[in-house]
C-alpha cells in the first residue's frame, strides 16, 4: 500500500527520544534551517525554491480585467496552489494542507499589503491588472509553507508586467518587445518561518521541520516577518496549546531566520538581474 500511513511506532518513539537529547533525525541542530536555494527565471516571474529536498515552483502571470465595483482603483492578486500527486502520492491530508497553504500565503502576502494593488490600476473603474501566482509543489520533504512563501514573494519581485500608457482615458498595453516590461510595486518582503512542536505537551520544538517530523508533530506554528523585523502574521491552527513563552521564543528565532531568508532572496534576485543584463548585451 502506498497511502501514507504515518510513521511506525519505533520511528515515532525514536524521533521523540532523539529530540529529547537535542538530536534531529537528519542530524541538524534544533534551530538549524535547511539549505535554501532560489533560482529565478528564465521566464519573468518564475522562481523555483529548494529547501533541503522540498521543491516549490512559483509562476506569476497577469491579465487586464475590470476592477471590482467596491474597489475601482485596485488590481487583484490571486494565489493558487495544489499539492498534486507529483510531490506526494496520495497523502490523505493533502487536500486540507494544500488549501491551508494557499490561504496562508494569500493572507501573508495580500493582507500584509506586500503588493501595492493600487499601482495595478490602469484606468480607474475600467481596467486593472489581475495578478495570478501559481504555486506548484514538486517535491514534498516537509515545510512546504516556508518554501512556498519564499517562491511566491521572490516570483512577485522577479515578475515584470507589460508597460502601459494611458492616452485620453484609453490604455495602450505595450508589447514587451517594443517597450521594456516594468516591475511590480512591492512594499516589503514577508517570509515565513515554521516551527513544529512535538511531545505530549509540545515541549520539544524544531524550526523548519522535515517530512518525518511533521508526521509526529503535535502543533505547527508559523511566524511571518519582514526584513524590518515586523511580524506580519502568526499562524497556529489547532494542535496542543502553547504558552506565551514558547511563542516569544519562536518569534525571536524567526527574526534571525527571516533575516537570512530575505538576504537569500535579495541575493538570488540580484544574480538573476545580472545574468539578464549580461544576456541582453
Amino acid at each position, binding site marked *: 500500500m502506498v497511502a501514507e500511513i504515518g510513521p511506525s511506532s519505533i520511528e515515532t518513539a525514536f524521533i521523540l527520544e532523539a529530540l529529547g537529547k537535542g538530536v534531529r533525525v537528519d542530524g541538524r541542530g534544533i534551530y538549524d534551517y535547511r539549505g535554501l536555494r532560489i533560482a529565478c527565471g528564465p521566464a519573468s516571474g518564475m522562481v523555483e525554491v529548494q529547501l533541503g529536498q522540498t521543491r516549490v515552483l512559483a509562476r506569476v502571470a497577469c491579465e487586464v480585467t475590470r476592477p471590482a465595483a467596491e474597489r475601482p482603483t485596485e488590481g487583484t492578486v490571486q494565489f493558487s496552489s495544489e499539492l498534486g500527486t507529483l510531490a506526494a502520492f496520495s497523502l490523505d491530508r493533502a487536500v486540507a494542507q494544500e488549501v491551508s497553504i494557499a490561504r496562508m500565503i494569500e493572507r501573508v502576502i495580500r493582507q500584509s499589503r506586500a503588493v501595492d494593488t493600487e499601482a495595478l490600476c490602469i484606468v480607474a473603474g475600467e481596467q486593472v491588472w489581475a495578478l495570478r501566482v501559481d504555486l*506548484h509543489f514538486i*517535491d514534498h520533504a516537509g515545510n512546504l509553507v516556508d518554501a512556498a512563501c519564499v517562491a511566491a514573494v521572490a516570483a512577485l519581485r522577479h515578475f515584470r508586467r507589460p508597460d502601459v500608457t494611458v492616452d485620453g482615458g484609453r490604455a495602450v498595453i505595450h508589447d514587451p518587445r517594443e517597450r521594456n516590461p516594468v516591475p511590480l510595486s512591492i512594499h516589503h518582503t514577508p517570509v515565513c518561518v515554521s516551527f513544529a512542536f512535538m511531545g505530549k505537551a509540545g515541549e520539544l520544538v524544531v524550526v523548519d521541520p522535515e517530512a518525518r517530523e511533521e508526521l509526529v508533530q503535535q502543533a505547527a506554528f508559523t511566524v511571518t516577518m519582514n526584513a524590518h523585523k515586523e511580524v506580519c502574521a502568526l499562524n497556529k491552527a489547532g494542535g496542543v496549546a502553547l504558552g506565551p513563552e514558547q511563542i516569544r521564543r519562536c518569534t525571536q528565532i524567526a527574526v534571525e531566520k527571516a533575516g537570512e531568508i530575505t538576504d537569500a532572496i535579495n541575493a538570488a534576485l540580484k544574480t538573476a538581474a545580472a545574468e539578464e543584463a549580461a544576456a541582453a548585451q
Partner: protein
Amino acid sequence: MARPDRRDPDQIRALNSVLGQLSRADGSAQFSTGSTSVVCGVYGPVDVKLFDEHLDRAHVEVKLRPDIGIPGPKDKWLESAILQTLEGNILAHLHPRTLVQINVQVRADGGSLDACAINAAILALVDAGVPLRLMVAAAACAVMPDGRIVVDPVAEEAEAARSLHTFAFAEKGLGEGEGPVYVDSRGVFGIEEYDACYGVCERAVGRVLAFMRSAVESKVTKESHVAGA
C-alpha cells in the same frame, strides 16, 4: 530569414536533463529544451483504486499540470497524447493489478511543449525502472509562412507558423517497425510538406535519443561504479 534565436533551421535547442532528483517519486526526470522545461515524477508499480484495476495489466495514468493557471482542455489533450504515446510502450502485463502514475509538471513553455513533455515522461519511466519495450523520443517542427521548415520551434515561431508537427519515434535499428509512434499535425499543409517534416523530426528525434542514452548511461555508470568498487 533568421530565426528569433539565430539557430539553423535544423538545429534543436540545447537539451538538459536531471534524473532521479525527486525524493518521493519512484523515478523522476527534468527535461529541458532551451527555455521549455518539464519535470516529471513517476510512481509505480503502486496500489491501484479498485475502479481502475485490471486483472491482467497495470493501469497507466498521466496527470499534467500547466505552468500557469488551472488545467484546461489543452492540458487534458496533452495528457492523453502522452498516455497514448507511452502506454503501448510500457510492459504493463508484468505488473497486473497495479498503477503506474506519470505526473507531469510544466515548468516553462517556450514552444514545442508537447515533445518536451513526452521526453520528460519517458526518461522518468526509465528512471523508475518501469519495464519498457523501447526508448521513445519526440520532436517538433513548424512550417513557416514562407515555406521554411524549422525544427524545435520557439513559441514565437509556433504562433506565426502555417502548420505545426510533432512526431515521436522509437529508437531505430532494433528490428521494430520504423514508423512513428505518435504524430500530431495541425494547420494547413500539403503531403510534400508533411513528408519533409517527417524527415526533419525523425532526424531530430535521433539526436534527442542519443542525448537521452548518454544521460541514462552516465547515471547507471555512476551507480554501478559504486557497486563495483
